């Protein structure tokens, strides 16, 4: 079992990267929520799942809420996930179509560039 960690990394442009590592579930959901609230004090945030080994629907719920808050307050919000992301994380994201709801890019640098722009919905039926 890999313990969950959440790291806030400031970016020179004033953005914040929230990098998850290890296994995240209800036991770390509240800590993640608090970290995302903290990160929302910047004009834009990137949530990087590349080192996350597991996330469940309670974590997706926290991400969706942060995304909605960002959209409402006109801040940037971009998720990092791609082929390099551990398979269990990619599986739950594609199963729930999270990547159709949240802006998602495979690369942290591209995500940071995109997070400079206020959030708009990707796809909402």
């Amino acid at each position, binding site marked *: *079992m890999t313990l969950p960690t959440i790291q806030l990394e400031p970016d020179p442009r004033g953005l914040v990267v929230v990098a998850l590592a290890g*296994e995240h*579930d*209800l*036991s770390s*959901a*509240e800590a993640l929520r608090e970290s995302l609230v903290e990160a929302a004090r910047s004009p834009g945030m990137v949530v990087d799942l590349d080192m996350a080994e*597991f996330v*469940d*629907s*309670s974590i*997706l*719920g926290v991400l*969706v809420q942060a995304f909605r808050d960002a959209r409402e307050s006109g801040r940037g919000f971009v998720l990092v996930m791609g082929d390099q992301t551990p*398979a*269990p994380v990619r*599986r*739950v994201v594609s*199963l*729930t179509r999270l990547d159709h709801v949240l802006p998602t890019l495979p690369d942290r640098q591209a995500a940071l560039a995109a997070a400079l722009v206020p959030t708009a919905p990707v796809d909402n039926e």
Partner: protein
Amino acid sequence: MSDDLDLVLASSAENVPVVRQAVRGLLDAAAVRDQLAGDVLLAVTEACTNVVRHAYREAAAPGEIEITASSDGRRLVIAVRDRGCGLTPRIDSPGLGLGLPVIAAVSDRMEVHDVDGGGTLVTMEFALAQSDDGAG
């Protein structure tokens, strides 16, 4: 079919990864890997999360989660039971409503059963890739 795992833990968020780790041990021992293993761990996590979030929300004291897993080599059956309020819908749920559909999606069969005396039993079944000839 014998019980391969029989675990009773306090219903708390901290115990969700503990359950996952116990089931992972079972999967490793049975050489269940890759996406199937990941799906089992996800489904078990979702079922336990539901117990922690919902089952005892009106209870004076937090209750327990009971997890059993058994396999006949062809199918893995995992049951997550609580002695809580019984499954009822919640318009004001703190979740996204993804737990049950995630379990249903990754398992071959999901069953939700009322427990006598109160509570919910969620059973998930997974077909195992067959490596030898064991008859059903």
